[in-house]
């Protein structure tokens, strides 16, 4: 994608630094006096909201729009097809708690992963909607902890462990699973039938960016119909734009739109209470599920 941008803007060399979304925020914070980045590309919109509140972003259009959604990233249940036949895979979140998956579940460490935080947030929010407090959600996560073989810190290592059958199923995000499949790993995935959180992946221009105009052009560029379609075809990204001609998108997008059920999420609430929920989980639930059952 950056090659096409370079072709359209002669003399521009687009350079990537690849890191976790929470790390980007840290970096933009610590570099605020001498910003090194022009564009912040990718990460949950709630993080961009935090950055905008801290005056770390430059306005894109007018004075009030600080970031724009680029992709939608859903969470899925993924499994190793060598160990789990497609017909036997879990259909919904609750199925992951079934006895036959005990000690077969690998979980990407939720403190570091935006996708995991979204799933954890969904569990707590469902509990709040059903009972008025978070106790039911905490109990659910404790049961999941009892099923969990290991919390894995690094995504590459988690994929290795899944492929090498240390665990059979995991909770993950759709683009990563699809790219792993394209690399020849025999994985399958399902959209949970009761609904899955879909993260708003955004882009923004860093305040004080040395090439602010080009940075704005880049954000516009990745949101252009041609690039949205390219990202869908090559990087398995669900376009954020809804005005794209349906026949220009690859088949998988249409399939996803047909099968995926989006869970209602209060993202502002997650933005507000998420840190406290995660801290509670980290200190009081992690590692306690096995003794409790």
């Amino acid at each position, binding site marked *: 994608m950056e090659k096409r941008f370079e072709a359209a803007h002669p003399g521009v060399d687009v*350079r990537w*630094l*690849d*890191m976790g979304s*929470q*790390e980007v925020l*840290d*970096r933009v914070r*610590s*570099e*605020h*006096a*001498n*910003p*090194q980045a022009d564009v912040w590309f990718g990460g949950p919109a709630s993080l961009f909201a*935090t950055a905008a509140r801290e005056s770390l972003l430059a306005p894109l259009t007018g004075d009030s729009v600080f970031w724009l959604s680029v992709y939608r990233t859903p969470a899925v249940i993924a499994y190793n097809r*060598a160990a789990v036949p497609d017909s036997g895979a879990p259909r919904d979140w609750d199925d992951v708690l079934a006895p036959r998956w005990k000690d077969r579940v690998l979980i990407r460490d939720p*403190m*570091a992963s935006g996708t995991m935080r979204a799933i954890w947030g969904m569990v707590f929010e469902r509990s709040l909607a059903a009972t008025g407090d978070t106790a039911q959600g905490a109990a659910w996560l404790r049961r999941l902890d009892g099923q969990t073989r*290991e*919390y894995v*810190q*690094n*995504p*590459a*290592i988690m*994929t*290795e*462990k899944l*492929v*090498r*059958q*240390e665990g059979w199923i995991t909770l993950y995000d759709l683009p990563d699973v699809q*790219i*792993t499949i394209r*690399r*020849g*790993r025999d994985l399958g995935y399902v959209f949970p039938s009761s609904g899955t959180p879909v993260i708003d992946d955004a882009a923004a221009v860093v305040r004080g960016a040395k090439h602010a105009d080009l940075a704005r052009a880049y954000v516009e560029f990745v949101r252009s119909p041609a690039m949205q379609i390219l990202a869908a075809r090559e990087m398995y990204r669900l376009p954020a734009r809804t005005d794209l001609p349906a026949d220009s998108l690859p088949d998988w997008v249409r399939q996803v739109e047909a099968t995926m059920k989006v869970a209602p999420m209060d993202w502002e609430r997650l933005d507000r209470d998420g*840190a406290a929920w*995660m*801290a509670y989980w*980290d*200190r*009081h639930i*992690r*590692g306690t599920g096995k003794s409790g059952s």
Partner: protein
Amino acid sequence: MSAGRRGRGSVAAALLVAVLAWVVLYPLLIVAADALRGDVLAVVRSRAEWLALWDSVWIAIASVALAAAIGVPLAFLFERFDFPGRGVLGALMALPAVLPPLVGVIAFLFLYGESGFVARAVMAVFGLREAPWRLQGAGAILLVHAYSMYVYFYLFTRAGLARLDESMLEAAASLGAGRWRTIRRVTLPLLRPVLAGAALLTFMTALASFSAPYLFGGSFRVLTTQIVATKLNGDLPTAMVETLALTVVALAGYAFLRLGEGRGLLVAVGKGTAPRPRRIASAALRRLTAAAGWGLAALLLLPHLTLLLVSLVPDGTWTTQALPPRYTLANFAALVTEAERLRPLLNSLWMAAVATAAAVAAALLAGHLVVRLRARLARPIEWLLTLPWVVPGTVLAIGLATTFGVTRPLAGRFVLVGTALILPLAYFVRSLPLTGRAVLAGYRQLDPALEEAAQSLGAGRWKRLWRVTVPVLRPALAAGGGLAFVTALGDFVTSVLLYTYDTRPISIEILSSLRLEQVGAAAAFGVVLMAVSAAALGVGARVGGTR
């Protein structure tokens, strides 16, 4: 000692203290000020925090014990006895020091993990359906620590033994002391500075260790991983309080171990020739020693070999087979043919070289001031040299990023973040304890009569330094400088916070490859890093070994 020399020494000492305080202490004070603004009481009242603290401490103590138990006997074996293959094996023993970060830990995973070679072999032999163990929790952390940290004891003890004076041992023997009594009453007391130095390094490294607990800890929490979890959760104030707690524990450990180093009064007086290695008399025992040595070397090399194997595997082809089904050189070809991938290697090389040279120079100056001139500022100098080990690398990096992220010339703060200077500066700070401990310990064993003799023979200051001090300190310089260079070359913890596009080092390129799930490419980078590190240590050992 002339008044003039004293005076110049005081000025030099004051300058050294000022520079060290500026780049080492000042950033930490800025971090500490942030910590004290947080909710200290809430952290103090939390049981989870105390548990993490306790786990950090006992892991560090156990790591020192294990590392000493492996490193010291090995050093004696290789420095005292002669047997076939001693030279090559002696160098191979230092190889765990060159296992690169991140991928090194991944090598452990492929080797000893539940789907690794060893577990699969055991499963095949005993017909098990499940892996007999998991590479998780305190046991896994201690395994990695013992493996990577015994090198400190091994190298330091060898350097110390090489500087022992044989006449002392002969005197003990002629006074009727047996071999064990001589070791206990003469050798070990003389080695006390180097042993305490190694223990200090190991304790601090284990306490600050991040990758092993991060990747293998599972639900076993130590403070370093707790800090990162808290920080990732956006609770920066609590993370800073946890950082402060870790720093306090480390300072206490430092104070305790520093007592063990003594005041450096025990120096070997005399002409300072070390005893020659003794040929093992019994032919059978000699062969047994050689065989055990090669066996041990093979065991120590297994992670490196695993990494090499992984670097030769096309991504995604190796799943549940005992050995990879296919091999390729494509991962290495990509390193050579793509200029973008060669760049990180060159970056790491120049930044590590600059940082090590500066740290060696600072250590020599410090050794001269502290041990020889006994400058009034001796204790602050030593303290500042050790401080970067007392605080975890993450904190140093955060401190540097905060301090040198704004322009306030009057407060001594300039924008270095985002420039090519910040990483060499961070490496320099992190190298100071390595070169500092080694050179100070070496200086303490150095007989001042040597320099005084050179002076009475009319040698000037630089000539004395170049012709007497540096040659005699060569084992210590090589040990400290070699470790510093290799550590900077493979640094991950500080680099990840401070790198820029133009200065991205090897470890960051490894991380990027891993994020893209190119495990083979990451391993290939690891193999190259390992080869360069081994070459650097090999050169170091040769420089240090010639007497």
